[in-house]
């Protein structure tokens, strides 16, 4: 679908903030879903980019980092250009919580909802943070102070924002997963964790969650072809040995079922 790029922002060098006009997608989009974007130039395949936010049932926002050829080309787009995008694709974060009777519903959970994002994995968490039955706490991991993004926005949509950085230039020096462990150790009751970020980070989050009996949803990343579930090139391995399509069966999986080394 051709969607007009109505606002192009740049958060920092190499990090772009795009808003496209496409009511069709905006109306359908759920947190955790992604867009599949044709970048043009010398690239051939589409590039998966998470939906970061949905505005007024009409605009879809996504934020991407320039990594290679495709994102570099995408960064050249100008306001008014029409981008060829498929979406919204994939499943979504499950934002329903079961009440006492055990029935899944949209009841408000008692304990904390914790979001844990690292690097480019923080972007899908914004729309999620706005869609939950109650304000979550968010733990954000960055390389350094320079590479922070969306912190002000998360401060609004979240109850609390905790930050870790690799070099300690902002927040806790160390892994964002340390923050999670601290929180659990200090006795906070966590109802559910949602996480998106580098595989090693998510692996620790998943292990921590599972070993503490906390429900946890992870957003997986994999190289993709079609993005719609047909080519079966984007699989991740589950603990039962089966291989699932990240684009269609995911990108959201239950942390307990993913084999991060598979």
């Amino acid at each position, binding site marked *: 679908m051709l969607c007009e790029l109505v606002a192009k922002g740049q958060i920092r060098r190499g990090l772009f903030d795009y808003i496209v006009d496409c009511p069709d997608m905006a109306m359908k989009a759920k947190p955790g879903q992604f867009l599949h974007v044709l970048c043009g130039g010398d690239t*051939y395949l589409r590039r998966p980019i998470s939906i970061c936010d949905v505005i007024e049932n009409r605009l879809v926002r996504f934020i991407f980092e320039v990594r290679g050829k495709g994102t570099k080309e995408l960064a050249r787009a100008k306001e008014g250009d029409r981008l060829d995008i498929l979406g919204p694709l994939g499943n979504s974060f499950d934002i329903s919580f079961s009440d006492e009777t055990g029935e899944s519903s949209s009841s408000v959970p008692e304990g904390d909802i914790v979001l844990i994002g690292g690097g480019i994995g923080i972007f899908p968490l914004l729309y999620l943070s706005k869609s939950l039955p109650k304000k979550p706490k968010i733990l954000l991991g960055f390389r350094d102070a320079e590479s922070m993004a969306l912190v002000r926005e998360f401060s609004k949509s979240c109850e609390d924002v905790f930050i870790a950085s690799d070099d300690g230039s902002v927040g806790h020096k160390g892994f964002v997963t340390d923050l999670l462990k601290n929180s659990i150790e200090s006795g906070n009751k966590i109802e559910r964790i949602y996480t998106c970020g580098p595989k090693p980070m998510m692996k620790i989050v998943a292990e921590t969650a599972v070993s503490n009996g906390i429900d946890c949803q992870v957003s997986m990343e994999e190289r993709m072809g079609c993005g719609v579930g047909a080519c*079966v*090139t984007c699989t991740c391995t589950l603990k039962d040995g089966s291989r699932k399509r990240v684009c269609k069966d995911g990108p959201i999986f239950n942390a307990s079922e993913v084999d991060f080394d598979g």
Partner: protein
Amino acid sequence: MADLSVNIAGVEWKNPVTTGSGTFGFGREYAEYFDLSNIGAICLKAISAKPRLGNKSPRIAEVTKGMLNSVGLQNPGAEYFLENELPWLRQFDTKLIANLCGSTIEDYVEVAEILGNKLDMFELNISCPNVKEGGMAFGTDAKMIEEITSKVKAVSKVPLIVKLSPNVTDIAEMAKAAEAGGADAISLINTLLGMKIDINTRRPVLNNNMGGMSGPAVMPVAVRMVYQVRQAVKLPIIGMGGITTGEDAVEFLLAGADAVSVGTAGIVDPYAWIKVRNGINDYLDKNGYESVNDIVGKLEMNN
């Protein structure tokens, strides 16, 4: 509107466009984008007698105007397919082609037997470069092609298409071997074996190291091979490799393909199949042809 119908080994297709096996799943996903009854046939992803896991990810790498894949024939097995996928597929007014895979000749025979006459055609996939056993190993040796073709043909209740690998010295020889083995049609090309290296990690991008190359980049090789096979055998030919537009498809038809298959182009654009079908029709209309059969093999050589 020209007459687009073609007859492939006795099976009537309403138009000459099918899907590249492995690029279209079992059809469910693209059914959300268009009515599957709009294409002549659906060639389904490879099916083996037993379920297969396929290879580890990454299974895909982008290359210049194309891609490499190393899916490795992941599929839920023939019985699961018959129970859970086929009934749904039968709602569409189109022909269904099962792409048969296996590690041994017995595997191929077994899957053909399980599927019986429940599909309209079989396509023998002896050209997959992404599996250690079977696959391309069968498809690059003329004697093996003849043997496996005749054994599968012996149990096939529906016309048997043999799909050739382009990773050979003499494609015509392979086509003749398939013909000798009793093939009812030939399809080509499967993917060209390639490798893409990530110079930062100094490792191949694909977890399986090498993979099959497809997409526009391979088209000139595919057109050449279709032409060579057209000169070598009398069987109907389904041509493929990089087809993205109606014009591309017309090149294959002129070179001698009776039908065409679109794979990778659809991975990029879910409407590619429909666009190719419409594009063929436009070419026929514009040039005053009444039927697609009027251009099949109508290439004139320069000398």
